[in-house]
Every structure is written in C-alpha cells, then in structure tokens.
C-alpha cells in the first residue's frame, strides 16, 4: 500500500539544489509555473520504501522575507501548502550563511532535514564538520550528500520520510534579546485575537515578522480583528532597527554553534581570490574577457563545420531520395522540397548552437561568468542596463528564446523589461543562414568581415536602443548589482552537458514545431493555386509578395525578397528556404541564382542582411516575450520598433554601401 509524502526542497542559491533535485527525481520531473508569476515551478516524483514521494523544488533564497517574488513563493508554499517535510540543501563550504535560512525555517514550525551538500568540496578543503553535534544543536537531522556524485541520497530520503512521519515537532527558535522578546510577547497576545490567523500560522513567527516590518504579514494582519491593537504596538517602534537587531541575533546564535561543529583552516585570501584579482583587474579584465569570447566563437564556428557538412550532405541526399521515390509527385515534393529541405536548413545550424551553449555552460559552471558579469557591470550601467543582463545577452547570440528566459535572474521589473526589449538585437544563430548565403554570394572573400560587421551592428543598435528606452519609456535608475561569486571549480562533463541541453532543447523544440510548420506553409503557398509553377509569381506566395512589394521597394527588395521576409516572421531560418523555393533552385545553386538576378546587388544584399538582423523577433521569441512580460503592449512594441529600426537602417546602409563597396 503506498502512502503519499510531499517534500519541499529549499536552500540558498548556488548550493547545488538543482543538481540534487535532478539526482533524486531523474526523468520524472514536471516543469511549470507558479501561478501568477513567471517563476519556474519544478516538481518530481520518487518511489521509495512503499511511499509515493512528491518533491517540490522551491526557488533558491537567502531568507524568508517578503522582498522578492522567489522568497514569497517559497514562504507561502511552506505556510499554506504545509508540506510533510522540508529538505534544506546546505552548502557545506558556506555553513554560516546557509544556517541563516535554517533559523528562519525553524520558526515556521515545519519538519526540516538538512542535506549537507558539496561535502566533497568541504572535505577537499580540509574542513571537518561534526554532523552529529550539529544535528543535536539544531534539533534537525543532518545528512551528508554530494549531489554531483549522487552520494547520500538514500540516507536523505529515509531521514526525510522518518521526519515526516514523526510528530509532534519541536519548535526551535532563536532568542532575540530581552527587548525584542518582550515586544514579541505583546504582539503574540494581540494576534491571538485573530482566530483565523492563529489557526493557519504560528503566532510567534507572525510576531517576529511584524517586528521586522514584513509587508506581507502586515497586510495579512490588517484584514483581521487584531489589526488595531497590532498597529498601535508597531507604530511605536522602528522596524528597521529591530530587523537589524534580529538578523544580528540569528548570526550570533549561529556563531555560538559553529566553532563547536566546524573545524576549518583559517582562510584569509584563497587562491580563487587571487585569480579574481587577475580576472577583474581594472585594465586586463575586459581584454581577457574579450579574448575568451573570441575563443568561444572561434571554437564554435570551426568545430561546428564538419558536423554541418555531414548534416548538409545527409539532408540533401534524403530530400532527393524523397522526391525521387515517393508517389504521387506532389507528396514527394512536399516531403522532399518542403519539409526535409526546409527543416534541414535549420538542422544544419544545430551544431553551432549546441557548441556555443556548451561553451557558455562550461564558463558559467566554472564560476567565470559571474566574474565576467561583474566586470561588465560598469559598462552596462553606463548604457542603462543591469550587470545581470550580461548573461542573457550572451545567450542571445545562440538563440533569443532561452536568452529571454534567462532574464528571470534580474530582480527589477523595469531592468528586466529593458533587457528583454533589446535582446533580439543580439544576432541569433537563426540569422546565420541568411548571412552565409548573401555574404558568401556577394562578398566572396570579405564574407567574414561582413558578418562581423553585422554582429557589431546588432550590438550597437542594442546599446543605442537601451539608452533611448532609458531616457524615454523606461526611466529610472538601474538597480544596484549584488551577485554571489561562487568559488572556481572544474565543471563535470555531465553538468555542463545537461546545462547545454536545457537551453539547446528550447531551440530544438522551436525547430521541430514552428519551422516544420513554416516549411509546410511556404511549400503550400508556393504550390497553389493548383497547377501553377512552383514558387512563381502566379502562386499565392507570389501574389502575397507583389502585395507587399511597394513597402520594401525603396530598400531595393523585390517581391521574392518580400515574401521571404514575411516567412521569416515564423523563424528567421525560413528566409533562406523560401528564397530557394521562389527562385526555383536547390540550396547549392541559390547563390548563383541570386547573383544572376539584376535586381540584387552587393548593396541591396547588405541592406537585406541588415533588415533580417534587426526586424522583429521571430514567432518563438515573441511568444516568450509575451509570456515573460505578460503584456501584449510591450510585445507589440518590440515588433513595431524592430520593423521601424530595420527599415530605416536597411535604407541607410543600402544607399551608403555603394560608396564603400566599390573599392573593397
């Protein structure tokens, strides 16, 4: 007979909670959203000892106050949902700070088990932690775990099950000093008048929070009968001062225990710190970063090449096979020319994206990227962007979809919105096929230089747009930069690969759905009305193009380009595929066909590339923008702004280019 247990997983950020969660739940995970907010909710299931266990991964927090959405979610879950047991993942190399959260958990009167994670790193440092004694002092079971190696998981689960089934639970609290304690007593007394509250929450906890000035609790109390008396008590005190005092007391309590359970070599300045001196050096910091970025892109482009060649050959062969062997002819064409070629054009860039994400994952997991964010904070601040915008911008070079999702780490809503709005100007990998085609065809040996110019242009537009938005639609100061610097470590292959996969799979999903759909739509519009020549001016695609043509004529684009751009709305990769259809050629001969077209010159090609670089995010990215901002207004703004900027700059570039290209 199975019984159900619910475990809430909590802990500070950067303690390996996610790794532990993955190790515990494996593939039986479900990712969703906490209602009403854009914070990710992960739950998983395990079967152990006849129990069916649900594990809920709460957001990582330093404490349980009402400052951020993450903390409120964690706290509300613990109070309202009343999980059977809470497992706090503690970083064994950072006990002091981690225990701060423990003191707050204890006050919630929930059963707690501590997973003393990263025990391997603590031991490697020469630290010795007396788990038994620590457990005694805290009155909480402490289990040694190493998430990355899967050690201690069984013991942890058993301890959790045991704790969940034991009752009653001892409320272990910190003494806040005579003055505060006296106030707490009066508050508890006042609160007891509110039966509702008393039933749902531990009164002492409520009192403590009121004393700290917790907005969330204050509003809860305000709705009930205890309100008046509580308000009068609170109005006579300075909440800020009490909060500081109480934080102090908590740390004091921790400091009293720590020396008795934790034996560690005194570490003044560690090697990690010394490396930081080099990496964050005033003059060398940014150059080192730029050099590493060059290395990342160089590696991405070169190592991806053989894979791309292999995929290309495979796709072409499959497409020809399909067209040749599938009856009836129209179906063969749909599958061969439409689906396989269309999707194939996208798959070719898969190695590119995955390798870039792998390198980024490696840099992130090693701890370097946190330092890079710190180094870039100052220049980003000058533009009006928060330092934490840095990592999402980097990811944007791979694909804007995971990049925009990565902006969740930015606390301020305004800063976050700003980052999301300028992110699409980071030239994602989807635009590469267009650059490669046109730069390759029209600029020959200079193609590399042209592509570099485009990437830089994207960055410049992002910078200017950020400044523009800051001074007009999104005024305000950039919020201050505070970020934890995890110690440097050599990431395991597994961790980095999984990290790469979680981002890269978003791109795959997009390719699998939207682009597939897009390829079929392109094919359909090009093949009908029935009997028309595939991709000619008489097909629906052609008619659509002629309709739009006047709008893009000043840029030098003809109807074929117009159609391709419209399809590019679905996914920028589709631009190349649709051009192939419209010019009636396969991938290889497309460049020749383009060169032969009298309407297209090197200048217009450049204008076209600029347009593709800048004009609105693709459907997938727009979907994420809507989801993350929750607003149609801003999503629409992103589209409109993108199109306007693209049109203007394409116009300028197209007309200025002939002056520069002639000599090159």
């Amino acid at each position: 007979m199975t019984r159900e247990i619910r475990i809430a997983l909590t802990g500070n950020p950067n303690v390996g909670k996610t790794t532990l969660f993955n190790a515990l739940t494996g593939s039986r995970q479900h990712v969703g959203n906490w209602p009403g907010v854009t914070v990710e909710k992960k739950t998983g299931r395990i079967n152990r000892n006849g129990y069916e266990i649900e594990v809920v991964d709460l957001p990582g927090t330093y404490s349980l106050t009402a400052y951020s959405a993450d903390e409120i979610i964690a706290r509300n879950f613990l109070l309202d949902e009343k999980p059977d047991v809470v497992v706090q993942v503690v970083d064994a190399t950072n006990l002091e700070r981690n225990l701060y959260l423990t003191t707050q958990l204890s006050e919630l009167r929930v059963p707690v088990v501590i997973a003393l994670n990263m025990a391997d790193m603590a031991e490697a440092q020469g630290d010795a932690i007396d788990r038994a004694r620590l457990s005694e002092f805290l009155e909480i079971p402490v289990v040694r775990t190493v998430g990355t190696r899967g050690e201690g998981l069984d013991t942890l689960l058993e301890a959790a099950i045991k704790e969940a089934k034991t009752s009653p639970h001892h409320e272990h609290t910190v003494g806040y000093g005579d003055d505060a304690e006296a106030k707490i007593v009066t508050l508890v007394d006042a609160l007891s008048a509110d039966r509702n509250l008393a039933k749902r929450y531990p009164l002492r906890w409520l009192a403590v929070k009121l004393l700290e000035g917790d907005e969330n609790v204050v509003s809860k109390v305000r709705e009930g009968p205890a309100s008046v008396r509580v308000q009068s008590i609170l109005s006579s005190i300075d909440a800020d001062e009490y909060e500081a005092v109480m934080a102090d007391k908590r740390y004091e309590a921790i400091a009293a225990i720590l020396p008795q359970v934790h034996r560690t070599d005194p570490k003044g300045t560690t090697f990690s710190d010394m490396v930081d001196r080099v990496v964050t050096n005033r003059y060398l910091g940014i150059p080192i970063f730029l050099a590493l970025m060059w290395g990342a892109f160089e590696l991405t482009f070169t190592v991806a090449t053989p894979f791309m060649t292999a995929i290309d050959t495979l796709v072409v062969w499959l497409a020809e096979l399909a067209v040749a062997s599938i009856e009836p002819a129209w179906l063969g064409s749909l599958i061969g020319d439409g689906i396989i070629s269309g999707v194939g054009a996208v798959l070719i860039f898969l190695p590119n994206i995955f390798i870039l994400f792998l390198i980024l994952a490696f840099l992130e997991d090693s701890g370097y990227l946190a330092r890079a964010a710190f180094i870039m904070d100052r220049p980003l601040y000058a533009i009006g962007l928060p330092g934490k915008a840095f990592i999402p911008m980097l990811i944007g070079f791979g694909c804007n979809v995971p990049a925009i999702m990565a902006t969740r780490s930015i606390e301020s809503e305004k800063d976050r919105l700003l980052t999301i709005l300028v992110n699409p100007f980071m030239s994602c990998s989807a635009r590469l096929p267009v650059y490669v085609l046109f730069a390759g065809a029209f600029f020959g040996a200079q193609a590399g230089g042209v592509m570099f110019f485009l990437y830089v242009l994207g960055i410049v537009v992002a910078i200017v747009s950020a400044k523009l938005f800051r001074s007009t639609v999104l005024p305000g100061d950039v919020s201050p930069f505070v970020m934890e610097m995890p110690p440097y470590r050599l990431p395991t292959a597994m961790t980095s690969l999984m990290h790469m996969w979680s981002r890269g799979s978003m791109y795959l999903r997009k390719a699998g759905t939207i682009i597939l759909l897009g390829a079929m739509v392109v094919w359909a519009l090009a093949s009908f009305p029935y009997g028309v020549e595939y991709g000619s001016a008489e097909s629906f695609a052609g008619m659509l193009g002629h309709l739009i043509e006047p709008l893009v004529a000043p840029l030098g684009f003809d109807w074929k380009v117009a159609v391709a751009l419209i399809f590019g709305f679905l996914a920028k990769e589709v631009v190349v595929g649709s051009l192939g259809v419209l010019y009636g050629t396969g991938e290889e001969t497309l460049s020749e066909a383009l060169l032969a077209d009298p309407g297209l010159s090197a200048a217009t090609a450049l204008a076209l590339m600029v347009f593709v670089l800048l004009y609105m995010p693709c459907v997938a990215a727009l979907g994420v923008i809507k989801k993350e901002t929750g607003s149609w207004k801003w999503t629409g703004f992103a589209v409109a702004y993108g199109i306007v900027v693209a049109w203007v700059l394409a116009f300028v570039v197209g007309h200025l280019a002939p002056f520069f290209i002639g000599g090159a």
Partner: protein
Amino acid sequence: MTGDLCPLALLSAGTEATVADIRAGKGMQTRLFGMGFCPDARVKVQCANRGSLIVSVGDARYALSRGIAMKILVGCAKGVA
C-alpha cells in the same frame, strides 16, 4: 568601536572591516542581511576597482557595484584607502 564610519566602497583590496550600518531601502537591506552583511559582521575586501568590490563575508564571496558598496557602512579603524 570608534564612531567613525565610512562606506565599504572606499576600502582597498586586502582590508578587513566590521559592518556597522546599511543605508539602503528596506528590501535591499533585508536581502543583504540574508547574505551576511549584518551589523557586527566581519568583511574582507578581495578585489577593488573604483568602488566596485568583491568582498568575502564568512566563506561567501559577493560582487558589489559601487552604488551598493557606498551604502554599506563599516567602521574605519585602519587600512582605509
């Protein structure tokens, strides 16, 4: 403890100090407490660059921009830049 207080941002690399006060908004203050920047906490500046710092508090390391480092006040007994 002497009455002299100065912002953390002004300290140079290698200096240690004790946190005295935090002059920031409520939310930031609470967050900093949770991270370890509590009155009487010992901090050490590891890297300093025109006000932006990487400091260690206990076993943890944090990067702070100049803006926030100016709001954390510490006792300036010795080693001030």
